[in-house]
């Protein structure tokens, strides 16, 4: 990103520029101090709430109430244990993992196959179908909420993970198809032609030649969809209302927050939130370049 680093300093061509130099340098100095000030400030604003959450997850409830800014007297991992088992955060975590694994796989599979056909094959109704998918980008999910509830219920998928998986995938298709169609179009046609000439079938061509070539796009979009599905709240809240044992993490955390309001177990809430944040943080730090490009790719297209 700091590609401008290696910039050669412009040659001090004429003595006339020397006079103009001083104000520029002064301006730069001020800008530099100011910019670090602002940058540090926003960094603190971003980090402080999160840091506070982690620290509070180790404190006792008495400590939290007495001094919100204080440090814990000891590392109380029993808060974490209470959140993990008592508030079933562990269970919800695994539920989310199951649902999201299923939904991302389904999204990528159906999205990639559809996109590939749209990008590479001519057939009647192609335009129409393509715009049917992409048109979905304009509709807010709120509009579909009431009928969707009944579609899912009538299909016998209410309160099931299968229902969530199918719905997540269906609502991710517009963007996935849009993005991957554009991506498949950028791949060179010569490779595919050569493979076909060599007697490669259409199916083998896709799975063994085109899909591997589309890896960068698939990874970006996989990350994008993963985070989207992992963070879903509205859809599970409507489609997974009853059975608490099948809730996803977002629902479990929301319920934990409500309970905490009555029980006053703040430490447990902070521990629950921290448990939910830590894996995301680890994945983010490990793959931040991919995550950032995956999430921004959609907009920069």
């Amino acid at each position: 990103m700091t590609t401008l680093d290696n910039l050669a300093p412009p040659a001090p061509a004429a003595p006339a520029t020397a006079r103009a130099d001083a104000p520029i340098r002064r301006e730069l100095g001020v800008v530099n101090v100011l910019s670090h000030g602002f940058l540090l400030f926003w960094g603190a604003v971003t980090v402080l709430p999160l840091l506070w959450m982690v620290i509070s997850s180790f404190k006792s409830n008495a400590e939290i109430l007495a001094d919100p800014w204080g440090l814990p007297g000891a590392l109380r991992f029993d808060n974490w244990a209470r959140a993990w088992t008592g508030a079933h955060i562990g269970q919800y975590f695994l539920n989310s993992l199951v649902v999201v694994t299923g939904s991302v796989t389904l999204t990528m599979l159906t999205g990639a196959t559809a996109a590939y056909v749209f990008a590479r094959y001519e057939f009647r109704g192609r335009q129409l179908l393509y715009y049917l998918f992409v048109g979905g980008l304009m509709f807010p999910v709120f509009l579909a909420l009431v009928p969707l509830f009944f579609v899912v219920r009538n299909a016998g998928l209410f309160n099931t993970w299968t229902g969530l998986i199918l719905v997540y995938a269906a609502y991710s298709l517009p963007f996935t198809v849009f993005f991957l169609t554009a991506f498949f179009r950028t791949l060179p046609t010569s490779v595919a032609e050569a493979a076909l000439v060599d007697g490669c079938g259409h199916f083998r061509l896709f799975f063994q030649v085109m899909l591997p070539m589309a890896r960068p796009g698939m990874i970006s979009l996989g990350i994008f969809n993963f985070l989207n599905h992992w963070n879903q709240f509205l859809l599970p809240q409507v489609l997974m209302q009853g059975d608490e044992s099948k809730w996803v993490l977002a629902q479990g955390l929301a319920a934990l927050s409500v309970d905490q309001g009555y029980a006053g177990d703040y430490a447990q809430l902070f521990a629950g939130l921290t448990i939910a944040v830590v894996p995301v943080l680890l994945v983010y730090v490990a793959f931040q370049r991919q995550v950032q490009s995956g999430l921004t790719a959609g907009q920069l297209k």
Partner: protein
Amino acid sequence: MKHGKYPLIATFLVPPVLLYVVFVVSPYLQAFQISTTDWLGYSAEANPVGLANFKALWHDDYVWNALKNNAILLALVPVLTIVLGLFFATMLNMGGRKGRAGVTGVRGSAVYRTVYFFPQVLSVVIIALLWKEVYHPSKGLLTSAMNAVGLSAPTWLGDPRTAFWCVLAVMIWSNVGFYVVLFGAAMASVPKEIYEAVMLDGASRLTTLWKVTIPLLWDTVQVAWVYLAIFALDGFILVQLMTNGAPNFSTDVIGVRMYDTAFGTETKFGYASAIGVVMFFLTLSVAVLALRMGKRDRIEYS
């Protein structure tokens, strides 16, 4: 070719199309139809009532109140987020001092970028719940900090005068980092010769930002605007979890209104679908408007 392309087209298209039509297209179409009925509940009959729901909406003060809040969000969230995003991205990409008039990033810009972006990968649920605690009137981070320096703090989310602004602040907090990275990437793709030339001509940083960077980034800014506008029309999760529209409906937004109408204390499905239809047309017109108003001559520099 061993076999034709049609087996592949069929196998590849049928599952996604089926999935999409059943769970996306059909609900959307049904929503328009349901919005013209008086459907009240799980088994009650749905009678066609024409546009009665929409007429009722027009006179529904709660809906207007929610829409007013969305309008304020729409006016402020995109502007503030984009300004902050551009500001920090500029600082990170060109705030440095290396070289005489060279354009470099500040030291540690990669670290800043990593930190700023992080809220974007967090679930909105976590952000909402965390900030609800930050705003807590007795044990929250903010109140105790203000008390420590001898200031009396408001009750934040408990006070109708402050609650809305508290939610708005969280919206900006959670979005800025994303746009810092987005704008930063766009800035990095601007050829450095342009900046060299501008610097040689003696332009100040502010002029450079205003006259060179922003015009070159205009496409990106415009897309950001559309996304943020759509975001501002939603705000459902944050509001529902932080305040659920309280106190006294001061933080209510249209999404929460719709959810409560359909799945809250009452199950007015017809009426809720009408709200959904309104949301659809609002989102659509805001997106179209943002794209129209932002129209400028494209600047190519490749």
